[in-house]
């Protein structure tokens, strides 16, 4: 490598070639063969948002049912299915995938690379997630939805007390979404560690990318636990194993341990990207780098570690030995500290920054107001005696909605508004943005704050009705009224986005004067992201760039070539070629559906699906003739080098 000084040439020709190299293919098959990270990321986001709307409708139905005591709007059968679907949808089909979608979309852009590390795997992850969700909803419409709650405790979810195929569907949906989550996690880890642009050493990685790395590692170690837990549940239900059958030596608590070993980290998996959004937005809107970058990163890592040591606080009421439980109290309390430090760092950043206000920042303010309440009620739940009282009551319902809506949904909506100009090239309507924010903030608090009181006043969660005279009626009416505001807020936001997408003001490359690399690209970004891989010379890539900040040359434009850099210092190491479009991810996800859906009804489908998947995998890995030719020529050193993009007019060695 050499650093050269050249006159800035005109890159129109190169851009045209790149456009052709990375372009999507036309037609349905082209659409199904797509492997571009921006496309796939947007598909994740849109699909997850649609599932969010479905989950929201389910929530609305539950609020109608609970409007008055002994209501007959929904029976226990329908209500149980709906609350199970609501929880499962929001956790597995909305919260995690939408964060992954943002990661898939933004991480390569923030790192200055062309695509994620394994584009085909990425597409496969999306389809498997989509099919898992569609399967669950198909069964829901066929009246075969699970109805044992989103954590499907055995023995209620076991073969005897949940007859039918509902819980099998649930368990299989878990498998699908977990595979998808794991796939994205692997990609993001490898992309971040190997594909950062030159100069982006570990201490210059944007905080959002850090949050996605931490989340990815959590996924890698947490999600296998739930796959095993739900896999055991499937085996118990389908082939008669006794893993959870106490009378044959199994143990129902085993399920709870494994589920919460995943389930608690899951909460962090959902809101740590939210913390990343907050950091991104605050950096842009305070005009300075986040105070305490090192502290921010290390607290994220500490949160991830502690997140794995607190799962038993979901099981305080099961009567485990007291001493052991006290350890988990301590761990659960201590996990407040890293998040607290992050909050103090943000306050310090705002304090010393030039704080501007726009809708994304409003959502960050909402995050502070709401999430801290959730964190503090979390402190209460960490205490064993208090947990004994409020566990499994509406207090807990209020708590985790404050944590998840405050910690994930508010930052997420902020992120929608923040990156909307980048996706569409146009600005959203600020007025409507503010309206939807206030509707959400008010509606949310009206809905969920009374639930704290309801829980303390003895209302257990997951009851399909309650009795008159329990003094819960008025607060439930209030909660249902708040839900209307929340629905209006989401509706306003959708209308805002749909209208602004076509009619909004043209945004330009960097409307917020934000700092990360994606803002150096036009909006929306070209299909290949960066014509030349950029270099960075500071944490805030855009702000710290010199006027003549170097870019990388010497890479081909007519191949999907990416630059691999070293893990620690991001020095250029070698180049690799990414695969192009491929129908095989879609085919493989179909064959996996045959195996895994079929297995619910008849065990041999599993084998059939496995064989078909094996064939699909061979197709997946079989290199095309052109790729082979390329490789052979390259190894012989006979592949013609394109002179395009090489420094053109005057070359002079840099001092």
């Amino acid at each position: 490598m050499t650093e050269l000084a050249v006159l800035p040439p005109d890159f129109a020709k190169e851009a045209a070639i790149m456009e052709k190299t990375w372009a999507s293919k036309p037609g349905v098959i082209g659409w199904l063969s797509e492997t571009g990270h921006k496309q796939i990321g947007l598909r994740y986001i849109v699909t997850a948002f649609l599932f969010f709307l479905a989950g929201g409708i389910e929530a609305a139905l539950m609020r109608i049912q609970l409007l008055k005591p002994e209501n007959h709007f929904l029976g226990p059968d329908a209500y149980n299915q709906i609350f199970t679907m609501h929880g499962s949808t929001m956790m597995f089909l909305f919260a995690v995938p939408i964060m992954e979608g943002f990661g898939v979309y933004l991480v390569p852009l923030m790192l200055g690379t062309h695509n994620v590390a394994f584009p085909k795997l990425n597409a496969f992850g999306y389809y498997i997630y989509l099919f898992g969700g569609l399967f669950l909803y198909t069964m829901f419409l066929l009246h075969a939805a699970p109805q044992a709650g989103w954590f499907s405790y055995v023995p209620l979810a076991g073969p005897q007390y949940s007859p039918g195929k509902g819980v099998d569907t649930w368990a299989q949906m878990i498998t699908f979404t977990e595979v998808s989550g794991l796939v994205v996690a692997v990609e993001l880890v490898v992309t971040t560690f190997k594909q950062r642009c030159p100069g982006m050493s570990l201490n210059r990685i944007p905080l959002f990318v850090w949050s996605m790395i931490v989340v990815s590692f959590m996924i890698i170690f947490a999600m296998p636990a739930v796959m095993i837990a739900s896999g055991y549940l499937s085996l118990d239900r389908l082939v008669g194993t006794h893993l959870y059958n106490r009378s044959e030596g199994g143990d129902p608590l085993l399920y709870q341990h494994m589920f919460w070993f995943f389930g608690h980290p899951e909460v962090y998996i959902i809101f740590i990207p939210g913390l990343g959004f907050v950091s991104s937005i605050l950096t842009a809107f305070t005009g300075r780098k986040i105070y305490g970058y090192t502290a921010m990163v290390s607290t994220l890592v500490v949160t991830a570690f502690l997140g794995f040591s607190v799962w038993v606080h979901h099981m305080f009421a099961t009567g485990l030995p007291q001493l052991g439980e006290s350890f988990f109290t301590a761990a659960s309390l201590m996990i407040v500290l890293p998040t607290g430090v992050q909050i103090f760092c943000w306050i310090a950043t705002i304090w010393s920054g030039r704080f501007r206000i726009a809708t994304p920042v409003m959502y960050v303010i909402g995050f502070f107001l709401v999430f801290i309440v959730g964190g503090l009620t979390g402190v209460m739940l960490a205490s064993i005696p208090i947990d004994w009282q409020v566990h499994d009551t509406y207090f807990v319902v209020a708590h985790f909605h404050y944590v998840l809506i405050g910690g994930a949904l508010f930052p997420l909506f902020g992120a929608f508004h923040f990156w909307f100009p980048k996706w569409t090239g146009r600005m959203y309507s600020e007025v409507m943005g503010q309206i939807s924010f206030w509707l959400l903030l008010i509606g949310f608090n009206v809905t969920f704050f009374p639930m704290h009181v309801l829980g303390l006043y003895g209302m257990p969660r997951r009851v399909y009705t309650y009795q008159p005279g329990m003094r819960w009626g008025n607060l439930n009416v209030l909660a249902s009224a708040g839900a209307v505001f929340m629905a209006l807020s989401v509706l306003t936001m959708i209308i805002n986005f749909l209208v602004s997408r076509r009619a909004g003001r043209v945004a330009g490359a960097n409307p917020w004067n934000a700092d990360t690399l994606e803002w150096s690209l036009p909006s929306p970004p070209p299909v290949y992201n960066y014509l030349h891989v950029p270099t960075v010379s500071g944490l805030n890539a855009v702000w710290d760039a010199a006027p003549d900040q170097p870019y990388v040359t010497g890479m081909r434009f007519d191949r999907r070539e990416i630059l691999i850099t070293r893990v620690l210092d991001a020095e250029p190491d070698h180049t690799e070629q990414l695969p192009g479009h491929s129908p095989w991810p879609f085919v493989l996800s179909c064959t996996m559906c045959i195996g895994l859906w079929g297995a619910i009804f008849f065990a041999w489908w599993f084998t059939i699906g496995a064989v078909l998947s094996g064939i699909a995998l061979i197709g997946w890995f079989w290199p095309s003739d052109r790729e082979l030719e390329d490789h052979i020529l390259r190894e012989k050193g006979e592949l013609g080098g394109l002179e395009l993009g090489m420094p053109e007019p005057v070359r002079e060695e840099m001092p």
Partner: protein
Amino acid sequence: MTASTLAPIQSALHSAGPQAASIEHLWWVFFWICVVVYVITIAFFFIAAIRGRRRAEAVDNPAHDRRLGIFVSTCAAVTIATLFGLLFSSVATGNAIGTFGKNKPGQIEIEVTGHQWWWEVKYPDALAPANQITDANEIHIPIHTPVLLRLDTRDVIHSLWIPNLHGKRDLIPGRVNKFWIQADRPGVYRGQCAEFCGYQHAHMALTVVAESSADFLKWKSHMGEGAPTPMTPAQLRGQQVFLSAPCAKCHNILGLDAYGTLGPDLTHFRSRPTLAAGQLLNTRGNLAGWIMNAPAIKPGTTMPPNQLSGQEMSDLLAYLETLR
């Protein structure tokens, strides 16, 4: 009109026993500390926001960052101190509750068994096992006496929760959980299943009747007796209806040729305040409706609808009326 109007507020913040009282105390400690923390943090946030709004240019230099560092580390230190305080008070309360009842005189043991969706309550007699009392959906306890509850379940996981007396404890297949309750004020306290257990999780309540020791002993000896013999012809006919209709297949009445174990023991069931695990008040009208078509009132219940003629029904009710 339903059962819940009988009991005082089912609430964790209206304690009637020492454990619930100490949890309530702990709760208020946590609550006020959290309120203070919240107010301070949000105040910091808005002061920062106002200062930030007034700035024309962001400050980003090492000297300034050092001052911010002092702010953040002070806040972190205060957080750690607060957390340790909370941890200490929580563990102390937990230990006090955990060791409660050990080595105290006059202990009473009660076995509570969860069913989908009602509670079976037994008062075992260690000296004479035959004298065991079986009751359903209500627990009688003497006040000022620690009572040991042994919790077990016949089917899925349930959770016993009587918020005015104590926090909840799960009933888990294959393991017997134990915990202590004590009431210090006489009264009727409502409890409810807190772990989702299927269709009628919402209708799985029980009442705890806390009374003076004398009253408790009187109740207990009354419960030990079999059902009274029917006196009037209507009652006698009702008894026959009970034995020949489906009732006796599921319900037990002490002193009668009925040994069903599927449903609650009915020997003294008219003395219970509620019907159908706390869903209905135990009145003659409710009872008739319940017998006629229980699944319409509580969908999913094991109690089937019964086809009885008007005469049979009124005889049966007359008989059941005697089971006090």
